[in-house]
Structure formats: C-alpha cells, structure tokens
C-alpha cells in the first residue's frame, strides 16, 4: 500500500522533471500526481493488493456516514430538548463488537458516540465490549443495533 503511494510520488516527480520548466512548480507536480493515479489504477493488480485510492474512497464514505449520523443525532437531541415535556428514559447498555485493533475500535466507538442518542462510556480492558449510555434506551438500543453492522463493514473496508 505505501509502495503504491511512493510510486505515485515518484511518477509525479518524474513528470515534473520531464516538463523541463525554468522552475519547479507545485502545479506541475500535481499534474504528475494525477497522471500517476491513472497509471497505478490501471496497473494495481500487479501489486497484488487493492488500489490504494480505493481505500480513500472507503474513507470518504465513512466520513460521510459520520456526518449523516451526526446530523441525525443532532436533530434527534434538539427535538428532545425542545419537546415541551422530556419523555426520555436514559440508561446504559453493552455491545460486543467483532472489530479488533485500536483503530477499528476507536473508529467504531466514535461512530457510536455520534449515533443518535448514544455515547460510548467505557471500553472493557479486552477491548471488545462497549458500555453505551443511551439518551432514551429503548430507541437508541434499537438504532445502534440496526446500524452497527453497517458501521463495522464501513470501517473494515478502510482498515482491512
């Protein structure tokens, strides 16, 4: 994976030298970089790994999920705050994840925190169990369980 990126950089640099301009320009370099992307995309199977920008795509997708979750949960909370009578039943529940590794767990925890109505309070020492505080436990638990697989998949697309 880093190899692809390094190669891309090399191509961009080469491109820049090939232009034989008076001075080195960042724009030229950028142009070379784009060329490199195309080349590597075409050739990525030779590396035996995924195309590295593919992961970037997954990442963007993940971020998009983040944003939508954030927006949704904000709306939800606003509604709850502004509702004339607070009709919430907070509580703490657990969730056991299949994800492993610091990055995956962290990302999932952050996602869950941004999910409407839930905040990850604790991760157990083994790192596979989340203790989640829910604004309204009935609804949140359902929300979390519904979307969690989606999250896990999105995360794994980036990390694995």
């Amino acid at each position, binding site marked *: 994976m880093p190899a692809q990126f390094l190669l891309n950089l090399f191509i961009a640099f080469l491109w820049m030298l090939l232009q034989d301009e008076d001075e080195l320009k960042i724009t030229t370099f950028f142009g070379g970089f784009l060329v490199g992307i195309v080349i590597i995309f075409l050739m990525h199977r030779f590396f035996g790994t995924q195309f590295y920008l593919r992961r970037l795509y997954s990442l963007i997708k993940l971020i998009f999920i983040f944003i939508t979750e954030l*927006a949704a949960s904000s709306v939800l*909370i606003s509604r709850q705050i502004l509702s004339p009578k607070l009709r919430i039943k907070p509580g703490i529940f657990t969730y056991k994840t299949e994800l492993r590794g610091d990055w995956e767990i962290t990302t999932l925890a952050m996602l869950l925190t941004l999910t409407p*109505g839930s905040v*990850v*309070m604790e991760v157990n020492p083994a790192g596979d169990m989340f203790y989640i505080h829910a604004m309204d436990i009935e609804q949140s638990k359902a929300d979390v369980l519904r979307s969690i697989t989606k999250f896990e998949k999105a995360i794994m697309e980036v990390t694995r």
Partner: protein
Amino acid sequence: MIELGAALLILLGSIMSVVSAFGIIRLPDVYTRSHAATKSSTLAVLLSLTGAFVYFWVHEGFISVRLLLGIVFVFLTAPVAGHLITRAAYRGRVKLTDNSADDELKDLLFPEDK
C-alpha cells in the same frame, strides 16, 4: 448569493448552538447533557466553520486549509471528549437521573454498592 447561503448556514449553526445550550440546562443529568454537547454543539460548530469556509472560498477565492483542519479536528475530538467526560463522571460517581432504566456498568464498577 452563496454568501447569503453561508451566512444562513452559520445562522443555523448558531440556532443549533442555542438549542444545545438550552439542552445542557434542561436535561436531567450529566450523561444526557453530554449528548447535547457532543452532538448538537459539534454540529453547530461544523456548520459555522463550513459557512466560514464557503464564505472565504466564494468571497475571496481562498481555500482555507486551516479551517478545513479545524473542521477535521473538531470532528475527530468531539466524540472522544464526550466519551471521556461521561466515563469520568461515571467513575467519579455522578448519579444517573432517577428515571434511568438499565445500568449495566454499575455492577461491574461498583459491586460493593449493591
């Protein structure tokens, strides 16, 4: 025109902010308040930052990396902050509101309280 859009984005953010501020007064305990803070408030700031970003882009043709970085940063840290505060609160034995339903942590952390 887009400037106006940016301004409206910001206005939305500010309203969001007031709502969440209202939330931390209205909600019954620190855990529920932290929901307001980590979510609505974060969204509010993201909105206003985006508004500013758009404004500078449109108005001065200036893509502010600093603003972008700021957005990323807030995005990255807000949930962590929420996580840390609620954890601290719980371990600092701040009580959940009375009408809370389950508490699956209690037995684990404070078994002696039974």
